[in-house]
């Protein structure tokens, strides 16, 4: 009697659930595809726009039938293409980094820029610039990478050994503390050794110095990071249910967290070493993604990558447009979007993760 009725109902329920999942997958794929198309278009725009105006047709020509004699082709190949590709990659890396961090710490306010990452990289950079002025681009990149890692490790260590764990406030404050300390050291050295002005460009973030060499670095390191992120995406979803719950479900939380930290380190380190301190992408994009697609990190990670890349390309175009022909630091544009969003989050009662 009841048994049969219930069984029928259960069938109905599970098919409803199944439908919902299928719908979600369709939505996810849809967003991904549209996102990637938009990226290609924006890249095209980005390459076309600039101090020297170049038509879109020329852009296509430069890609397909490259002629080293034509200046505009040169500009496209040497400067603009790497810049556009760099924007997509850096944006993607920062967004995924933020998503992973928010999942790991169960904290909607986590983001690479509050994590002491940028100040760590800055610190390493200052030391390199001040004491090894002959360092190559590669050397600088590596050192800022190392510095970023240092910053992240410090912040997470504080959290790990902290009473009561890493609450949102504590995380933000730990980031401020580590950041200020490293920043103070950096300032002291920078002022003493006269490298201060170089550093401030870096602080504001910019894609002006992106070269094919940087792209190679980005692709290798970031590629690894992205793959790893996708690999642990399902575990992060489970982790976001809570420490005890996920342990109860058989998760090796320590392993997941360690891998997660490595992902954050690699992705953010790569991004920051190439493009300087660009804030708020890691904060804002994961929220938008979650809003669109729910809490499944297997979707959140790829979609955040796509949206992050899109945002940064557009922000870069805006950065060049705003005060033409001077470059506004792209970090300023992302701050203009990011700070109000952060404040909105800070006011919110929602605990959506």
């Amino acid at each position, binding site marked *: 009697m009841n048994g049969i009725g219930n069984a029928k109902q259960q069938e109905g329920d599970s098919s409803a659930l199944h439908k919902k999942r299928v719908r979600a997958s369709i939505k996810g794929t849809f967003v991904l595809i549209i996102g990637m198309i938009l990226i290609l278009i924006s890249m095209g725009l980005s390459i076309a726009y600039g101090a020297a105006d170049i038509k879109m047709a020329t852009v296509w020509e430069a890609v397909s039938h490259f002629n080293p004699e034509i200046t505009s082709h040169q500009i496209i190949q040497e400067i603009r293409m790497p810049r556009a590709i760099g924007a997509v990659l850096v944006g993607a890396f920062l967004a995924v980094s933020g998503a992973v961090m928010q999942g790991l710490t169960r904290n909607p306010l986590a983001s690479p820029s509050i994590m002491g990452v940028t100040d760590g990289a800055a610190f390493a950079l200052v030391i390199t610039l001040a004491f090894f002025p002959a360092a190559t681009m590669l050397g600088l990149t590596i050192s800022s990478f190392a510095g970023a890692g240092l910053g992240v490790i410090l912040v997470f260590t504080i959290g790990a050994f902290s009473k*009561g764990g890493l609450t949102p406030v504590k995380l933000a*404050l730990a980031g401020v503390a580590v950041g200020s300390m490293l920043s103070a050291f950096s300032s002291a050295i920078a*002022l003493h050794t006269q490298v201060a002005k170089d550093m401030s460009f870096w602080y*504001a973030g910019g894609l002006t110095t992106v070269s094919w060499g940087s792209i190679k670095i980005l692709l290798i390191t970031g590629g690894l990071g992205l793959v790893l992120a996708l690999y642990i995406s399902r575990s992060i979803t489970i982790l976001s249910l809570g420490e005890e719950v996920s342990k109860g479900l058989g998760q090796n939380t320590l392993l997941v967290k360690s891998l997660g930290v490595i992902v954050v380190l690699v992705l953010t380190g790569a991004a920051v070493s190439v493009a300087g301190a660009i804030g708020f992408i890691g904060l804002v994009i994961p929220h938008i993604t979650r809003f669109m697609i729910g809490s499944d990190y297997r979707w959140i990670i790829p979609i955040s990558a796509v949206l992050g890349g899109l945002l940064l390309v557009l922000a870069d175009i805006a950065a060049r447009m705003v005060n033409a022909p001077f470059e506004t630091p792209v970090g300023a544009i992302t*701050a203009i979007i990011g700070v109000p969003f952060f404040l909105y989050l*800070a006011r919110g009662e929602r605990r959506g993760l």
Partner: protein
Amino acid sequence: MNQSNAKKKKFIVLIILLFILTIITFVLSLNLGVVRIAPIDVFKTLLGKGTARDQLVLVDFRLPRMILALLIGAGLAVSGAILQGVTKNELADPGILGINSGAGFMVILFIYFFQGSMNSINTLVIFLMPLFALAGAVLAAFLIYVLAWKKGIDPVRLILVGIGVNSGFGAAIIIFQLKMNPQDFMQAAVWLSGDIWGTNWKFVAILAPLILLLLPFALYKAHILNIMNLGDQVATGLGIQVEKERRLLLLAAVALAGFSVAAGGGIAFLGLVAPHIAKRLIGPKHQLFLPITAVLGAFVLLLADTIGKNLLTPTQIPVGIVVAIFSAPYFIFLLMKAK
């Protein structure tokens, strides 16, 4: 009560000890520097019997600077103590809440629009810059208050909004800084790191009464601060007008921070660490720990300034950096131990 008598004795001992330490540092600071003046000569000069050169260095340069250091140290420390009480968060400080960067932003604007004027400390600069800094501090506080207000102020929200506002002003500061010419840029950079730049008696004359008025005011509110520390509900139950008092105290804290930043640039962490140490030494009763905080803040800043001036001569390490380098690790330690 035995306990309170013991505490009172401890209080007196601590205050005397801190005073002695401060005086020693004071004398040392007068002595050290590019121009070294022996302690005996210091005393002679103070009594009006020194050489003209000594007179110039001591009375016109070092003395006002050190007095400012004392005032700023006390001001920032007490500001932090009040903020911690009002936000019920042991980790609050005017730097973290963005009040310093608000002031800094206005100062950067000032430097940007009055380019090149930082070189001469003329009357205009002395009067206008602190005003700009104060306006910036108030602006930041206003923004934070308004944004954190949602039918009342939740302390956690206040801190988070503060951090947000801090980031915002930080970004704005960088944008303007990059537009400056190299000289102004350096001036700005140094100021932002915390630098007691107004070595001029006129400056002291303006700031001293302002800060010296606010400090006793804080003490006057000690009882109320004690009660607010018990939580909004208990405080309301005891008949305190919580929102009104919170606003008033915030205003006082912001004013203290604003004036201190005007004179000393972006010095962070002092307002955080000094109240903590004071509380550990003497307990949470504001009547006792506020005075200790003030004297401790004054001492620490004077010490930091002395170190900053003399450690890597001829480079002057901005005092804010020295404070940050020593306080940040302690802050991190506190963060790990706090609940």
